[in-house]
């Protein structure tokens, strides 16, 4: 999974520039939306378990809040950069806009590797992060959420620190909290299910019965797991998944032509989504190189790991039978790969539409937390389906009527809504 020499922010800006041109945005609006509104970069000193003090680098980037309070996750990743966070914050703005939730976009991160941190050390990072930005975040300003290698426990530590600082109870400060502690039912499933809700609609448009389709999936974390579950529930067959192997520090693909058994695989998977390859082999899975997921003879590819995975160099290896790519991850496809995919006539459900289920459900959690009244899971997932389906239909309708690629159509809808909000507020 290559990440070298790739700048996500440049890619995000290039995508934006293309859409700004399509929309004919004026110069000041372009200038405003190309850059984040605010950025915070700070140090988080933590006393480690061995007594030493280690200083971690933390970020919070608020790209745009014209449509409502900022919303975005917090990533713990050793390769975190401010540019990655900027790009992800911008994508959050578009994502909230494309599914029409009244929120802006933000992202945060800490350069660290939780694999090598004790729970206490992680807690100190969480609390330190909040202490640094407590004045600039909150239920009416910026609402964080879990992201890469952060989870409900991290959110609870952050909430606790925020409430200590503010001297009150603010369950709407953060989302992704544990159920029963202000979390929303359905949040765990939301992103993966959201991917499949949009995929289901795409297959209907392409007149492909889901029961006749096969899929190959990159990643075996939360998004993939729930995407696989719902896709299989609808009748589809997943024949390949790939995941990161922490021990070997490389990725592998796990293939089974008869279809993977999700529950069995989950039984041999660690908490970071790494599948035990020895056990998998015993269960009859072929263990292939990390990139092999891309080359499988399937109808659907679902990249659900990290950014920059389908690139100009490997896109030609996508199997000729692939009809749909549903981007579960953020920014998995580079612009040059996009051109290859477009030439091949593959239907793309762009990342900030396909994986918007997470933020949509986070928004639901925020609403519930602010009311301190919580909904049943049926209601959460029912609303999620409607939101995702409605967003997909708007995008596909525009793509069809203006003969645009799906990604461009999604951007046109999202950017124009944000630009309009900036105009309406008199900012530009």
């Amino acid at each position, binding site marked *: 999974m290559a990440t070298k020499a790739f700048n996500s922010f440049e890619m995000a800006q290039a995508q934006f520039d293309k859409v700004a041109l399509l929309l004919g945005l004026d110069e000041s609006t372009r200038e405003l939306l190309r850059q984040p509104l605010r950025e915070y970069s700070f140090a988080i000193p933590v006393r480690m378990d061995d007594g030493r003090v280690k200083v971690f680098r933390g970020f919070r980037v608020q790209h745009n809040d014209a449509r409502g309070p900022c919303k975005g996750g917090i990533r713990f990743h050793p390769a975190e950069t401010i540019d990655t966070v900027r790009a992800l914050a911008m994508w959050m703005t578009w994502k909230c806009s494309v599914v029409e939730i009244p929120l802006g976009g933000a992202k945060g991160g800490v350069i660290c590797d939780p694999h090598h941190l004790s729970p206490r050390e992680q807690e100190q990072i969480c609390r330190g992060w909040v202490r640094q930005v407590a004045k600039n975040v909150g239920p009416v300003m910026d609402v964080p959420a879990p992201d890469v290698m952060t989870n409900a426990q991290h959110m609870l530590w952050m909430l606790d620190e925020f409430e200590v600082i503010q001297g009150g109870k603010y369950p709407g400060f953060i989302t992704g909290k544990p159920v029963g502690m202000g979390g929303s039912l359905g949040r765990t499933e939301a992103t993966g299910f959201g991917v499949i809700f949009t995929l289901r609609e795409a297959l209907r448009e392409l007149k492909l019965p889901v029961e006749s389709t096969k899929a190959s999936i990159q990643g075996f974390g939360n998004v993939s797991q729930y995407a696989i579950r719902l896709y299989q*529930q609808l009748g589809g067959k997943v024949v390949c998944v790939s995941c990161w192997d922490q021990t070997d520090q490389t990725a592998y693909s796990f293939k089974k032509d008869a279809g993977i058994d999700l529950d069995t695989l989950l039984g041999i998977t660690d908490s970071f989504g790494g599948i035990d390859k020895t056990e998998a082999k015993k269960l009859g899975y072929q263990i292939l190189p990390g990139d092999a997921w891309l080359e499988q003879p399937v109808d659907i590819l679902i990249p659900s790991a990290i950014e920059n995975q389908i690139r100009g160099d490997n896109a030609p290896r996508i199997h000729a039978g692939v009809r749909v790519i549903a981007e579960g991850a953020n920014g998995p496809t580079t612009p040059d790969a996009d051109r290859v995919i477009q030439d091949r006539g593959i239907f793309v459900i762009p990342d900030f539409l396909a994986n918007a289920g997470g933020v949509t459900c986070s928004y639901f959690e925020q609403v519930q937390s602010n009311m301190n009244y919580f*909904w049943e899971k049926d*209601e959460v997932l*029912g*609303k999620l*389906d*409607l939101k995702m*389906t409605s967003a997909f239909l708007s995008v596909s309708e525009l793509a069809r009527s203006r003969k645009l690629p799906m990604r461009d159509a999604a951007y046109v809808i999202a950017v124009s809504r944000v630009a309009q909000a900036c105009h309406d507020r008199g900012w530009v």
Partner: protein
Amino acid sequence: MTANAHDLPRFGRHFAGSGESISSLGGGAIGGKAHGLLEARRLLARFDAKRHPRIRVAVPSFTVLGTEVFDAFLDANQLRSLALSDAGDRVIAAAFQRAPLPADLVGDLFALARDIKTPLAVRSSSLLEDALAHPFAGVYGTKMIPNNQLDPETRFRKLAEAVKFVWASTFSLAAKSYARAAGRELAEEKMGVLVQEVVGLRRGPRFYPDISGVARSYNFYPSGHARPQDGVVNLALGLGKTIVDGGRSWTYSPAWPGVRPPVAPPQRLLDETQREFWAVNMGSPPAYDPLAETEYLLQAGLADAETDGSLRLTASTFDPRSDRIVLGTAAAGPRLLDFAPVLVMDELPLNPLLRDLLAAFEEAAGTDVEIEFALAAPGNGPAFLGFLQVRPMSVPSAQIELSAADLDHPGAVVASEGTMGNGCWEGVTDIVFVKRGSFDAKHTRAIAKDVEGANTRLSNAGRPYVLIGFGRWGTSDPWLGVPVTWSQIAGARALVESTLPAMDVQLSQGAHFFHNLLSFGVPYFAVSHHAAHGIAWDWLESLPVEFETPFIRQVRTPAPLRIKVDGRSGRGLVLRPEAGSA
């Protein structure tokens, strides 16, 4: 075989306004009820509707949840073992309510609740409901919801609760008992769910049809000039629950719609006709009880119906000065529901339509049929008759002949000129009867409990029995008889209803358990205490007591009884073991 959900158009999230009146959600079978409605729809397409321009006939819009959704719900929430256990109905129903719906269903269901704001009937449509031999008709739950809340979230929640309610009813004690009696494995059962628009009109806080009814092409109790093949129709004001539950309804022969029951004096009709009706509660929210079938139903009286203006087609008026019934509601006075405006005064040609429909469906099905319908008649437009259910009837064919003289047989334990069923049965040695001396209508609920106990004991011992009681078996009104459910008497081999001076009501003629009686081949006997023939109480009371409570007694005969019913003449006998042949 029921149709498959994939054979129907997929639900398109534009249920009401799409013009597509039927659709499916999820895969698998659609179940018996939905299958029947599909068949009805096909037949209606060929039906000559031009002959009846004043009434539009159609199957009300519905979407059906396929049985795969039911399976996915049970499996994802690991509900099967609890469902099949002997846990109480409310325990099972509550567990179903707590469990989330399958994720691939909720969006469509939410869209449905968002787009429709009129009452919905959420009805069972199971695989076994399709079986002609032992149809599970009336065994499973139906829930009506007003669906008129302002916010779609509440409408969705209520719809989801109703779907889970129907799913849970698959595993009710009644269903389990029925399955045992029918020799079916409930584990094989799969439940489709129909979500159907309720036929009716809103009148203030109530929503209900002007007329609901059940029309059968074969009449087991022809009287007067009517012949069995003329059929029979039951009509009621409001929702069909009145008829299904065995409440008071108007029964007539479609060949003789103007013939009134021989009730004298006419004033008695006031007591013997429908006085209350069921409606969907569109007003103030009731107490929250998702486990109750009647959560959103209410009962109203004729005064309410008069206020609503819904007596126009259904009522006549009793004139106390002349001691006669004046047809229609032009005159002032106490109202009674005899449906004279449509049956006698031809205000709406309902009966000709029903006759044509019965004939058309009977011909198409190649057997006698039963049609459940509801009619809404707005004052300013054509009336609408909605098909709610269509199913074949099994009519007995064996030739048993009993003459009037046969009923004088000295060995008769029960002799009746009003029976249902056809054939001969032997091998029954147990009789459970309600005691004459201690009977009082105020104790009928306690009697139901005692009967249930006897039924359980005898069923567990594999001993079928003859059940004798006063008033209507299975009525929902405890003042009209013993309010048992079918599961409480499912082990009975023959059912006898009798009157007493203290319980002198019109007997049910098996209406409450009509399908159970037919499908299990259980003969039914109606015995009036006024009739020349009756029940040999003295002999019954002389038998040694096997078991007794303050209200009922179980006795055992020294040798098997013989039960004979002549389905053509309606005569029937239960004969003592030592009696000669009749």
